[in-house]
């Protein structure tokens, strides 16, 4: 259990104990009389009666003592009733607890008077009987009532035992002194049993609270699942409605197409069919976008990100669209950092800004961030058509669109803001919207602030630009061909692709180059089979393989692949490249070499 909830639980236990402390059991059909009140008063009276019968005791003493006990019990009944009536707030509970503890003390004191009031000099029974009943009282008070509220337990234990014990000790001898010592020595045992009882009570309360908590969690989860199902159902019924329309239309158009014979007609129908297919695809993508968002949320990874970095990406994606509508997309520079999953925040902002562009016909859209109470508030402000107050909640629902009751799908699908809501709900980002019809709308999104990370420490520079190949460990390409045109065109293509190129018209200079200038590098060798002079590609290949086998890979270019050449190449593990070499083949060769690393 985390620290916060542990203290919460401790205070909950405390409150529960006070409530239990005030709980009463009444005797059936005698609603006004508490069970314990009856036992206590009845016990006192019975004790008095016993002493009166056994010893020579004036009955008035029995009556006085019983009355005192009854009176003090009545106080407790009163405070119990008052507590029930007042049902006091949590912060005053402790006062009630102490007040009742004090009254319980008074009750205990009344009991403690028993040995004194019932005492008859020279009669052992008048000492032993009240002492026994006092012990009974303390035990019952400790176990049944005191355990729920420990302060009361200590008060009762001491005020019941100590005064009686001290009074009995004051006799300075005889049975009285023995009884007094007995009462005092009993005290540690009572304390021990009281502590055990208190522990048991606390454990019981904890169990009960645990169960209550679990039930609450269960109820909450059930409700969440229900809401999720309801949302899914709504989503799918809206989605299927939107998907069915173009499908139905396509069915009609196909029938028309089958029947029409005129060329112009057919072209027109085909154009409509294309529109339907495109619209279906768009809607499908949008729906998949929603489920993709759900998946992304599950895998969200929060890290410190510069706000301007996200803004720049949003702006570069949507600038063109804004410009197309002659709107200005203004993004003032921000130096704030926030702790978010950058992809999710970007998606939310893309939807908000995209939406702003869609519903604005003239003016500007402002995307800005400001510091707000330890957090970053990101705002998207437009000068668009605005949203009526009554629609402000509905705009975040799936497939809702302002001013598009006929659900014209050329105007978008109405999924964008619902994606934003999902993202913000899931990430715990407060999202607010303010709008004035005809003036514009402001969406405010608050995300947690983060400490700036110095540029060098940034975990993962987020770039999508394809990286240039690292030239240092990339092999070079060595071309051996006696035809100047082939050599030249290959050289130019390979240089353009970023490969270091070495071009030779014969085998010997190439071997010399491999042994000296090009010794430090790996080489992909493109070797022409038919060379000027007596050498063929295969003999040069043998020389290269014998001297530089580990760091060369040979491919042989040839116009015709005869069986002899193919066999020779196969034996040496050489690939055969058909001439003229196509760029795609060259690419395949080079990439398979890279992939082989």
């Amino acid at each position, binding site marked *: 259990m985390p620290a916060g909830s542990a203290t919460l639980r401790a205070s909950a236990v405390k409150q529960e104990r006070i409530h239990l402390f005030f709980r009463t059991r009444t005797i059936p059909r005698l609603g006004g009389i508490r069970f314990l009140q009856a036992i206590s008063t009845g016990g006192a009276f019975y004790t008095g009666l016993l002493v009166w019968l056994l010893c020579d005791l004036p009955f008035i003493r029995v009556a006085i003592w019983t009355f005192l006990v009854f009176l003090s019990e009545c106080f407790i009944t009163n405070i119990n009733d008052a507590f029930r009536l007042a049902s006091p707030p949590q912060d005053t509970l402790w006062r009630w607890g102490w007040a009742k503890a004090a009254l319980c003390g008074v009750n205990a004191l009344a009991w403690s008077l028993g040995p004194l009031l019932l005492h008859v000099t020279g009669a052992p029974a008048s000492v032993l009987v009240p002492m026994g009943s006092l012990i009974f009282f303390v035990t019952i008070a400790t176990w049944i009532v005191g355990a729920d509220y420990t302060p009361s337990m200590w008060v009762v234990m001491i005020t019941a035992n100590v005064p009686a014990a001290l009074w009995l000790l004051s006799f300075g001898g005889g049975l009285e002194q023995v009884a007094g010592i007995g009462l005092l020595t009993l005290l540690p045992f009572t304390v021990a049993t009281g502590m055990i009882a208190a522990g048991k009570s606390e454990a019981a309360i904890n169990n009960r609270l645990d169960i209550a908590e679990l039930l609450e969690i269960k109820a909450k989860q059930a409700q969440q699942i229900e809401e999720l199902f309801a949302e899914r159902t709504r989503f799918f019924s809206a989605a299927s409605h939107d998907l069915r329309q173009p499908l139905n239309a396509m069915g009609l158009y196909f029938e028309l197409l089958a029947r029409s014979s005129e060329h112009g007609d057919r072209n027109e129908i085909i154009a409509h069919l294309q529109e339907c297919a495109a619209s279906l695809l768009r809607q499908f993508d949008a729906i998949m976008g929603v489920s993709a968002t759900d998946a992304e949320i599950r895998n969200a990874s929060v890290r410190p990100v510069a706000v301007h970095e996200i803004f720049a990406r949003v702006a570069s994606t949507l600038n063109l669209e804004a410009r197309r509508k002659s709107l200005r997309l203004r993004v003032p520079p921000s130096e704030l950092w926030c702790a978010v999953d950058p992809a999710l925040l970007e998606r939310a902002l893309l939807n908000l800004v995209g939406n702003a562009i869609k519903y604005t016909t003239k003016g500007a859209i402002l995307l800005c961030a400001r510091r707000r109470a330890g957090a970053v508030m990101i705002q998207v402000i437009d000068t668009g058509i605005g949203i009526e107050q009554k629609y402000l909640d509905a705009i975040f629902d799936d497939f809702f669109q302002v001013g598009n009751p006929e659900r014209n799908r050329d105007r978008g699908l109405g999924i964008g803001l619902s994606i934003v809501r999902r993202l913000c709900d899931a990430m715990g980002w407060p999202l607010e919207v303010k709008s004035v019809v005809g003036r514009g709308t402001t969406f405010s999104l608050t995300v947690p602030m983060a400490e700036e990370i110095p540029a060098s420490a940034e975990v993962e520079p987020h770039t999508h630009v*394809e990286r*240039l190949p690292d030239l240092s460990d990339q092999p070079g390409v060595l071309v051996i061909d006696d035809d100047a045109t082939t050599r030249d065109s290959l050289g130019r*293509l390979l240089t353009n692709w970023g490969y270091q190129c070495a071009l030779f018209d014969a085998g010997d200079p190439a071997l010399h180059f491999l042994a000296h200038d090009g010794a430090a590098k790996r080489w992909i060798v493109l070797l022409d089979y038919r060379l000027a002079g007596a050498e063929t590609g295969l003999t040069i290949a043998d020389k290269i393989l014998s001297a530089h086998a580990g760091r060369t890979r040979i491919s042989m270019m040839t116009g015709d692949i005869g069986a002899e050449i193919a066999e020779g190449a196969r034996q040496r593990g050489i690939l055969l490249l058909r001439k003229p070499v196509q760029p795609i083949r060259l690419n*395949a060769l080079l990439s398979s*070499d890279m*992939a082989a690393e």
Partner: protein
Amino acid sequence: MPSLLFVDDHPIYRDAVRRTLELEIEDLSVATAESCSATLEFLAANEVDLCLADYRLPDGDGLSLLRDIKARFPLIAVGLLCADLSSPLADGATSLGAVLCLSKDKTSADLVAAIRIAFSGGKVYDPVSGTEGNTLSLRRREILIYASQGLLDKQICERLGVTESTIRAHWGRIFEQLQVGNRTEAVTRALRQRLI
């Protein structure tokens, strides 16, 4: 004559792609196969420049198929054309040295442009869904290819069937995206990054 083998288990889609490519790209011969085993059988008997495969196949997955092909026929260029491109798939394609890694949700013109780029020695990787990259659009890459062949704007706009001002607007965006100042630099940078 350039040749391509397209592997997909959906007969209608397979046929549509074959027809589109044969119609749009001159001289290209397109063969089709419906499974991994049929593909390997075909490649053992025929010469093919490029093998383009779907990921979901009845007797295996496209990436393993392409890996097999790469191992047995290193000189055949390979590419992936699949319905939902994910980053593991794109990473797999990258590590294979695939020249194409495309998602199916594209117009036929885009598909044709991508195949053209591959045959001219370039690579085309569609952005993985969810992470819209700042990559050069296929139309702009086509312009760069024509420019690298030495064509003037006027000739390019005739080929593409658009006005010269459109081409100039494209150039502006190309310079911006590649962070270069002129056409020569743009072509060089695009070649370096294997965009064309």
